[in-house]
């Protein structure tokens, strides 16, 4: 943006902010206070002044105190927190175990936010395997650490039956989001998408099986290319 436009924008913000603490009442017009009471506005005026003078004095002043009733709060159970374990295929580096933590917030029965952190350790490339002791990465660079922020959508909700007496609610879901991956001495912007199946055996427990692809650009092996890193995981989550 041009410097002139920036100065114009700055001036606009400064002018607006300097006055905005005084404008909180602009849209909150309360009913105007009428100094002469409600008689002019046509409201009821049940007891006129002479009636109050003629009224007999009360013999007993009732001392009634209303009992305060506290209504129990309704607990909400929209958050999920848990751990997952599975297999991650890091492109060019083989398949390794992956583990991590995940948290979800259910916005509606259809949509949910999910955040994941996870870690894996990359194996050897074919080049390294064939060349004996040659190594492309140090041991610390082989750590594959990532986080994702995703939006999920439940579809095909249903029930899974275990024998005659047990029914568990279930749903397939798709999710996609953004995040970052720390691998081979670099941090890459990462797009993820995937699908899964969720079973809820009780009100507080959810079991998830998911397949997720984590895509980022890597220039580790000479040329810049888009790498696909697919993982399959099993997660045990607790609702709270």
């Amino acid at each position, binding site marked *: 943006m041009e410097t002139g436009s*920036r100065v114009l*924008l700055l001036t606009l*913000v400064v002018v*607006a*902010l300097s006055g905005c603490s005084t404008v909180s009442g602009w849209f909150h017009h309360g009913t105007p206070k009428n100094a002469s009471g409600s008689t002019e506005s046509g409201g009821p005026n049940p007891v006129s002044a002479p009636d109050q003078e003629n009224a007999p004095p009360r013999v007993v002043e009732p001392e009634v105190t209303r009992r305060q009733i506290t209504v129990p709060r309704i607990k909400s*159970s929209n958050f999920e927190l848990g751990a997952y374990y599975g297999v991650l295929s890091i492109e060019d580096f083989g398949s390794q175990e992956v583990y991590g933590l995940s948290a979800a917030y*259910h*916005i509606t029965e259809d949509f949910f936010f999910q955040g994941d952190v996870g870690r894996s350790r990359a194996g050897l490339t074919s080049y390294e395997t064939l060349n004996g002791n040659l190594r492309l990465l140090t041991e610390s660079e082989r750590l594959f650490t990532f986080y994702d922020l995703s939006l999920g959508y439940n579809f095909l909700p249903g029930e899974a039956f275990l024998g005659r007496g047990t029914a568990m609610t279930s749903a397939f879901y798709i999710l996609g989001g*953004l*995040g970052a991956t720390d691998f081979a001495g670099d941090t890459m912007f990462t797009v993820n998408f995937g699908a899964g199946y969720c079973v809820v055996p009780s009100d507080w427990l959810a079991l998830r099986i998911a397949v997720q692809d984590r895509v980022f650009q890597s220039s580790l092996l000479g040329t810049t290319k888009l790498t696909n890193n697919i993982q399959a995981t099993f997660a045990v989550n607790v609702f709270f």
Partner: protein
Amino acid sequence: MNRQARQCALAGLMLLAILLSPTLCRAREYLQLFVTEPYLELHTGPGRGYPVFHAVPRAESIDVLFRRTDWFKVRTERGVEGWASQADMLKTAYADGTPFKFDLGDRAGFASHLWEFGVMPGQYGGASLISAYASVSINPHLAVEGSLGQFLGRYSNGVTGDIGFDHVVWPEARCSPLLLIGLGEVHIEPKATLVQPANRNEPTAYVGVGLRFYLSRRFFLRAQYAAHYIFTTRTSNEEVDEWKLGLAFFF
């Protein structure tokens, strides 16, 4: 004397029974509501597709165990547990007859609220940005906001942290412009293959404009542009354009 002792013992036992009885000593654990419509339908799961398996007749009470999204898990007097939708629950009443109300967020809350949180991906000087913010409102127009972001680019990665003021021009409107101004700090990790420059922390300032659009319940969209100035120790300052679009909620 004997009679007095017996009475004392009886009184003591009754007191003990009252103290040990959890139902009498403890306040009611769950909210009790009464069905005022001809019946209340209970579903097997918290979703519109799950079948109705039970109907609670009018005037019977239900205990509300907990809520998940728009669905309430309830237990009837006969011990049947099921899920009732929010729309159906709003037709029940408290013990004193007043209708049950539950605030899931509305336009009035959007116009005037205390807290706001959001996640906004975008671009920061050409690099991909992932950011989150939280704000606390001073009045419906003015809020103090703090945000954290991570940018990942071809030439550098880094983290930004900002704190500043938001001015909502028309808080009551479904779609309203925002004006932003504030200060921050940026941590830059340059990427280079031959000579590795040192990481650096620089103070920043920003000014920007945005737009917020109410979606539903407690959720709204927010888009914004901010011009960031990075005050470097070199001869000239840097100017960085930041674009963000994301989903936020208030309460």
